């Protein structure tokens, strides 16, 4: 298992916390919570070791496209970069829904 963390400067807050995905084969779990700071903090735990560069590319790209200040936790069970990007986008979408956003 590998633990990776990133921080990025950010300006816009998100409305609600969001939880999407499952720690199951080829998938991952993303938890996104509002943070009052001016940065985004991403913590990744993955069972597939040795792909730090790929993670960096995916996470960098996502947070350069979306300026959000959030605390993001990722529990990964072998998701491909595409799945990671889609789950992040889904979490962001859920975080802007105004009701029942808790699932």
């Amino acid at each position, binding site marked *: *298992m590998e633990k990776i963390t990133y921080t990025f400067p950010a300006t816009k807050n998100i409305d609600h*916390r969001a939880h999407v995905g499952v*720690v199951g084969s080829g998938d991952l*779990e993303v*938890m996104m919570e509002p943070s009052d700071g001016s940065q985004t903090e991403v913590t990744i*735990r993955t069972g597939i070791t040795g792909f730090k560069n790929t993670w960096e590319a995916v996470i960098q790209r996502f947070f350069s496209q979306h300026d959000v200040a959030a605390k993001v936790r990722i*529990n990964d069970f072998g998701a491909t970069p595409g799945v990671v990007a889609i789950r992040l986008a889904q979490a962001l979408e859920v975080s802007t829904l105004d009701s029942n956003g808790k*699932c």
Partner: protein
Amino acid sequence: MIQTGNASFVECNGRERAIRLLDNGTYKELLGPFDGLESPHLEPQGIVPQSDDGVIVVKGTMDGHRAVVISIEGNFQGGGIGEVSGAKIAGTLEMVLKECESGKKTIPILLFDTGGVRLQEANYGLLSIAEIGAAIVALRRHVPVIAVIPGKIGAFGGMSITAGLCSAIIMTKEGRIGLNGPEVIEQEAGIREFDSKDRPLIWGTIGGEQRTAAGFSDLLIEDDTGAVKTAILSIIKGDVIFETKTEQVQRYEAFLNMADPSRRISPEDVRDLWNQSGKKAFENCSASQNAKFKGRGQTWFDLLRNDAEELGDIPSVRVADAFIGEKKVRYIAVVPDAQNRFPRARNGEVGVLEGWSIAKHVRKAIEEDRNGKKRAIVAIVDVPSQAYGYHEELLGIHQACAAAVDAYASARLAGHSVISFIPGNAISGAFLSHGMQANRLIALRDPEVNVHVMSKQSAARITQRSLEELEAAAKKVPSMAYDIESFEQLGALHSLVDGVDASNPGQKDCNVIYKEIEKAIEDVAMSGSTDLKNRLTSSFAKLGGRTASILVREKLNEQWN
């Protein structure tokens, strides 16, 4: 949650399933992803945990009826039950029981999607499943406990026993229920016994359609969220009432007595047998002469009962009533029987006949003592495993185990002191069925006294690790170890007895055990409690053996209202 047009229930993840069953806007998730209660045992083994540990607990109403849905996420670690996930289920059911006891009727609904015990946490799963079973049996006296097995995984291992304890089981064609999964049977008994790649064979044996036609499931429904709701509501409202399976000892015994396992029985045969069993009068088959293997169970049974008359009706389940001082005690032991009709149960395993026979003799004691002094019931535990085989699954070994679990739990709830005495192996489904529902557990300190959930070979295969990796992990995580000293650390033992010869006991050893049993019976009487809570309040449990199990229950209690 964004609703899509798809009404499939099977395709939903665990959380979606739970939420979709409850009335809109009424639900509240307990111990959700942001409450920080993940498994503490996975990360040290290099496995990524999930924020809810794979169990989703949602409280709300269903068509106005108060309900709690417990949904297992099958995609996370195969829906395996670990310490946290197990405590979430058991703790929730215990809370529902409290509500029901205070007159606030709440319906528990369990959505199964689980391979059983999470092998990486092993004995924690075993302990949790015993506590879940205890809560279900207690709850059934107040409300129907509803099980839904939608698929894709189904309900396996100890959790198939849990499902077998419920008031009603609802399945889709995709759902499966069986004690031993196909891979495990193949590993333990060989590919000729069961080919785990043969999908028609699997669904023909343990799939929802077969199970419903053969007396092991109550309602077969389409894979549709609306259909799941309708089925659950029909049970809540009492439109349909099913007889509790675990209490129908006569019918299942008649069913098994008609089955002839000397030839390969087909799934269609089983459906016929089930239908006939409803009509035929029950004929007791006489006990065949037992070739006396001397296992520890047998040895201790003979020693403890002294000369008391045997009451058992099959050679593999020995029963006798005797006295320790003034106290009447019913001893029950599962022992090897070289002529067992079911070849896979000849070495002392708990099989279909054994499960139902235990249930019968425990229930008889409850019945006979209904208006009088309750005798103690002592399970002598030396069981190598449950029986692994095609016929066992086909004929519902999980239900036989559930019947035994239910009987012991019912005896406990009726006020009998139920004591387990463990001089040998206490393994997996066999231990769950015969021993784990006891008020108090007594074990001998001996290298051949082992407690675990699966043989190392099978556990390695299922968790996709080598034997070496498995053994290395067991050294780090006490719940994965097989020895009785590691099990003691988890806090469930009432006593671990030193200085007794486990294999060749003499009268002196016997007297020590009489004393231990007497002390345990007195301890039960003193505590005045009929549940299993003492396993969480023991010093070992508090000192770290059950930290997460205790924490989960405290948090549930905080969040409940």
